[in-house]
């Protein structure tokens, strides 16, 4: 399975989180917000100018910039 990131998901597509790259404050914040390995994420839509992107994760809606979404490795489900 080729590894992709949250940034590669199209509207309505799902993915299961593998891990979050890096060990800085941003990575920690992403994890705290529920982007933990094993969770299923769905891409809901994007802002009018294509960035940021809205995701559904652990039962709520989360907005990430594409640069942040790129740090979350997932596999398609």
């Amino acid at each position, binding site marked *: 399975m080729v590894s992709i990131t949250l940034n590669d998901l199209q509207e309505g597509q799902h993915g299961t989180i593998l891990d979050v790259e890096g060990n800085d*404050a941003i990575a920690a914040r992403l994890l705290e917000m529920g982007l933990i390995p094993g969770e299923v994420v769905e891409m809901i839509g994007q802002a009018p100018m294509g960035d940021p992107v809205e995701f559904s994760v652990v*039962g709520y809606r*989360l907005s990430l910039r594409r640069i942040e979404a790129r740090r979350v490795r997932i596999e398609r489900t």
Partner: protein
Amino acid sequence: MANRASSDRPATVALIGNPNTGKSSLFNALCGGQARVGNYPGVTVEHKTARMSLACSTFKSIELVDLPGTYSLSARSADEAVSVEVLCGEMPTVAKPDAVIVILDATNLERNLYLLSQVLELQIPTLVALNMWDRLEKEGMKLDAQKLSESLGVRVVCTSASKRFGIAEVQSALLEILEQAPGSEKANSTDSRGVLERGALASASFPKAFLESVDELEAWFGAQGCPLERFQIERLLIDDSQAHSYRVIPKRISSEVAQRIATTREHLATQGVSIPLFETRARYGWIKQRVVGVVERQARERRVSTSDRIDRWLTHRWLGLLFFIALMFLIFQSITAFASWPMDGIGFGTQWVGQRVEAMMAPGPLRSLLVDGIIAGVGAVLVFLPQIAILFFFIAVLEDCGYMSRAAFMMDKFMSALGMSGKSFLPLMSSFACAIPGIMATRTIENRRDRMVTMLIAPLMSCSARWPVYVLMVSAFVPKQAVLGGWVSVQGAVLFAMMCVGALVAIPVAWLLKRFVFPGEPSTFIMELSSYKWPSFRVVAMRVWERVLSFIARAGSLIFVTSVLVWAAAYFPGDHSLVDQATAKLEAEQADPNADEAKTQAWTSEINQLKSDLISKSYLGLAGQWIEPIVRPLGWDGKIGVAVLASFPAREVIVATLGTIYSLGGGQDETSQGLAENLRSATWPDGRPVYTLATACSIMVFFALCAQCVSTLVTIRRETNSWRWPIFSFVYMTTLAYLGAWIVYNLMSFWLDP
């Protein structure tokens, strides 16, 4: 601490929860709107406390402290660091909490439990309020609160704070917890107080090497005479080092602490402990165990909720943007249009009071202080209230219904290209009406750097007080022509250009500020988009009330003092006896029903002549003469210098000041033909006219860029808790204004009169 006599002191109860969980509603419901709002010492985090109307047998009274809405207790942001300090009893102004209420969004349990798992580490008696209980069913979920309570080991109360459901239960559960707090007579076992055994905490599953390091550090801190809570030591090890400035760590050991933390981290890295990831993993592992069989969600598939359906339209590529622009237009129009009535009313009221006082007192310094200093000063403060109230009404409604995060979501790409975030848009937009509510609205921006940049460029947006200046200059000096086939009026085009100057200059300023003044890691946009709901009237009313009150209380007093000081500078040291005599005669003449028109006019013009002489001899006037060589390069004479100087407290004052200086009396407004006529006929000693198109444009550009508003500077001081930033704003804006005016004057003189 266990044997502290408690009955003679108030209990402190902290309220904490994620943003958008209905925390404000619960706070208001528990306290009935008696909140005192302020800032924590030294930081820009808001501090809200209230006394609960609840009789407790073990404590004199109960103080509820509202902690900032936060997703975690990691001490990375100022909000979080303050929460940790309050919960550990290290905030000088707040006693260590005797109990803590953690509010959880029942529809989003897992992520909300993250914060609870951290709060439990502090081993303070804990009560869980499971809020939004009424929405579970709509979301197609089932939750077993009893089971949750058992698996967590703390008491759980179901609430719908906005509907005031479950409030009595929270109160009685809180009383029970407080009445068996250690130190009270009823203290018995630890079972129902909501304090977990160490082994039941999420930290029990942290890597062994990490726990051992915490043990070591705990012993070391104890030996240094500064015992820290285990949780704080964990935070020191896990979080990025800059943010935690725990007050209890004495300066003498701070460098050694940093050293120890660094070596411990290195040691842990060799042991395979990946900081900070292990913590989130351990906590979510703990959460997963606790919610087994507690939450039942309909199927694995995402249900398309009403909120999603609304979102499909409101964040739609074109319709979403259109709606957003229409909404911004509506807000902007409301601030300018609806506020003008009450503002006129306040202006009229101030004038009326001033006239009453004038009628009762003989002319003299005391009357001048009362009327021109104090009453005019208070009026200058009050006049901003309608705008603040209207803007905060809209912000509160948009925040409470969930649209605010969508607005930020849509504008983020655009604003981040300018070095800010989507959340900066609304504050900047509202600064076009008035920078004061705009600066206050930057509170919605969590990232400190983004917030500071937004706050510092907000005064560059063309506020409504600049309008009178533009109108006066344009109507007097810009030709009434139409160009481009009669479609574009030159006057209108110049007015529009002036509206844009500040915003355009703000773009490079924001970039420079971000690059050189607030360098650091890039900001993020990791933001929850909460479900749409109907705004709660109570929450909206409370927010507006709090903002209005805090503006009057904090900014008001300073604005008032400054107005009085400026009045003094313009009044002293001249001898006002002649003016006072003339005024007394004029007033006597006017009181006479058969007043001689010619006579009153003669008196009026004499008074204005005297006043204009006095102002040029006052401290302010002397300063004006002193700055004449400085303003010469801008194409200004000393009179303009004085008028501009006098308008530093509030820019719109210049119209009246120019009126006084050109001996027309103070009651001029921007459309007065007389003033425009007088300006056109003013000459230099050699007979050339003072005001040319170039001079007029140089004045307008100066006003567009200058920080001529004490209220704004005081508001920046209030919001940043430091004089550094208002001084910075003042210096950079004045410099920009001077340079801008100089460039415009020289370019235009060269162009029009080569």
